Structures are given as C-alpha cells and as structure tokens.
C-alpha cells in the first residue's frame, strides 16, 4: 500500500503489527502469503527473538513430520494376518467347486476358535493379535518431540518482549507536516519502507506504535556518512491543527 502525501513524497504505508505465534506457525508451514508474509519476513529480519522462535518451530515441525511419515503399515499387517489365517483355516469352501452332476456331500464349514486349543494361553500371549509396537514407538517419538518443542517454547517465551494483544503498529505518512520542506533526494531519510532491502540495520527497532486517531511517520535517519548503515529512529507525530498547543 503506497500513499502519496507529505509534500508530494511517496512513502510506503504499512501496518507494523508484530507477528503472532499463529502467524509464525503459518509462516513455518508455508501457509502465509501476500503482504502479511512480507511483513513477517521484515519482522524476522529485525527481531532475533522472532527468528529464534521460527527456528524452534521449524525444528518441532520437522521432528513431528518425520515421525508422522514413518511407516506404520497397518494395512500390510492386517493383510499378512489374513493370509496367515487363510493358510490354517483352508476348508472345503476354498477348494475348486465340484461338478454339479457329481454326488455332493455337504459339510459344514470348519469352525476354529480364535485361541487355538493346542497353544494355550501362554502361546496366545506371545503372539499378539496385531503388532502395534510400531505405533507405540511412533507415539513415543511424537511425545518426545512435543516435549522438546514445549521446552524450547518455554525458553523462548521468557525473553519475548511482545505481549499478545499489543496495539497495532501503524507506520503511516502524515497528511501534513507543518513547515516541513520536502527533502532533497540526496539527503532523504530512509523511511520505514526502505528498511526492507536489508541494507540498513535500524538502531532502534519500533516494536509497536499507536498513533491514535492521528497520522504519524517513522523515519530512519542516517547518523553518520552515507555509507554507514547506522540509523536513528524518529517517530514524527504532528498535532492535528496548525499552531498546536503552546
């Protein structure tokens, strides 16, 4: 979003809202897009805490995904079990049909109990009806991964400076700056939009700003020579009416 104001100078106008945890998760999962994706990337480039959070989320996500994709061949196990049962319960119904004109002696299908009498209870115990140990291993791995993620997350939250529900930060261009002549191109300050290129490292990062009903601007003013990347942050907020309060 671009606004052309302030003595004809064009400035990027954007909402500088710190990304929420949900948005960080969406960013890690690649589900964030558009303008918000760009804003989150910008916030990540500025905030090392956010970068650490994203790293932790990526680690957790990769571990969980790895375990989720591990092969729990439930279908294969069932099919193998059925095949094994077929071999032992093969009866007359599985045989080729007898010719119709031949005398047929019908027999009832042989019924076998689930627990074979000859094996007894101990044998039944040693051969479980289905092999779910892999599932338990996968569950354990996921639990360990979740625990590790919780641990990392807990450490991150201690140093997180952004409270949830913080006021929406708005970097906007003032409609009018009283008696503020347009800067020459050679000495124009780096407005907030120019920080996107990553060349300039703002000395003071604006985490949140609420201008209320007014319109304000954030400038990043170079402090030293033009080659230096060091900048000073200036929040410019003018009074509504000319003259203001004395």
């Amino acid at each position: 979003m671009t606004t052309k104001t302030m003595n004809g100078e064009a400035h990027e106008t954007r909402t500088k809202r710190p990304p929420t945890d949900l948005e960080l998760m969406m960013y890690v999962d690649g589900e964030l897009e558009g303008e918000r994706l760009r804003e989150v990337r910008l916030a990540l480039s500025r905030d090392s805490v956010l970068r650490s959070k994203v790293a932790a989320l990526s680690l957790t996500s990769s571990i969980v995904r790895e375990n989720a994709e591990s092969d729990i061949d439930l279908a294969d196990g069932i099919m193998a079990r059925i095949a094994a049962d077929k071999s032992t319960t093969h009866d007359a119904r599985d045989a080729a049909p007898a010719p119709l004109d031949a005398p047929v002696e019908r027999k009832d299908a042989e019924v076998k109990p689930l627990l074979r009498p000859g094996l007894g209870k101990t044998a039944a115990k040693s051969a479980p009806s289905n092999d779910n140990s892999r599932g338990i291993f996968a569950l354990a791995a996921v639990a360990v991964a979740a625990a590790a993620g919780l641990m990392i997350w807990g450490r991150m939250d201690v140093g997180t400076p952004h409270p949830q529900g913080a006021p929406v930060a708005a970097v906007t261009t003032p409609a009018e700056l009283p008696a503020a002549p347009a800067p020459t191109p050679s000495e124009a300050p780096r407005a907030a939009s120019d920080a996107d290129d990553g060349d300039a490292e703002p000395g003071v990062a604006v985490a949140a700003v609420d201008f209320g009903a007014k319109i304000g601007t954030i400038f990043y003013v170079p402090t030293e020579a033009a080659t230096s990347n060091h900048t000073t942050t200036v929040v410019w907020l003018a009074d509504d009416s000319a003259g203001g309060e004395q």
Partner: protein
Amino acid sequence: MRLPLIALIVAAFGLSLGHGPSVAHAQDAAAQADTSVSMEIVVLHGTNDGTGIDPKIGKMPELAKPPFSSYNSYKLLDRSKQTSSKASPSTLKLPNDRVLKVSLKDVVQPSKKGEPKRYVISASIQKPGGSDFLPLLEVNAKAGETFFVAGQNHKGGVLVIGIKVNP
C-alpha cells in the same frame, strides 16, 4: 515393553515441565538485576528563526538531516536523567504542558555472546486533559542509542524529544 515406553513418555514430559520453569527461573533472576534503567531525555525546540543549533545540544548530526532539517534552528529546552523500571515509569512534563511517560518494559538478553542486551522501552504522551497525544510507542533499543519523538507544535516550531538508554 509398554511399561518402559510409558515411562519414557512420562519422563519426557516431566523433563519439559521441570526444565522449563528452571530455565525461566534462572532468566527471571537475571532479569531481576535489570529491573531499572537510566535514561537521558532531551527536549529540543526546532524553529526556523535562523539562530542555528544550540551548542548545548552537543553532537547530534541527525538534526542536519531530514526530517529535522525542516527547521534550521534547534534550542535545548531541557535535558534530564530519569530512572525507569518495570514497576515505576518515569514522567516528564513537557514545555507544552503535556506529560511524557517512559517505562522499561523488558530487558532482552542477547541471543549470542558478545551482543549487547536490548531494552524494550515504552513511551506515551498525554495531554493536560488526560487524553493521549501519543498513546503508545514501544521500541527495542540498545544502550547508548537515541530515538526521537518529534512533531508537536510549540511556539511556532516543533518539539523534538530524544530518549537514550544510558549504558
């Protein structure tokens, strides 16, 4: 077979729950040492009366650059040192009778060795009637860095407020 697995799961969760608070406790203890911070606040008056930059201001090359260069003269109105903490924000009455409130919100320990810690500073400006001129400004600054809040009209010019966390 299942018993060790369940024990492993329980142990993992126990580790996470037990280890988290201990780390948090250690970091809280470190943060306790940084509950207050000293700040220097300068209040300048920018005009176009042609008197130039007040030498009392000291070295402030930003004043020669936009947006400050909109005004050719700057005079030092006030320079004060304030101590702010999480519990008690510092307040400063401005020349236009508004009140600047500055508070330390948090101290962010460096993620890498050798990097300085950063201070999360919150600032707001209230009008005499109690309404907000600037409801909230929250910045993340290193010690020695100055940030400015400027633009309030005052006596034919503007007020420029510089806030710096002292090392």
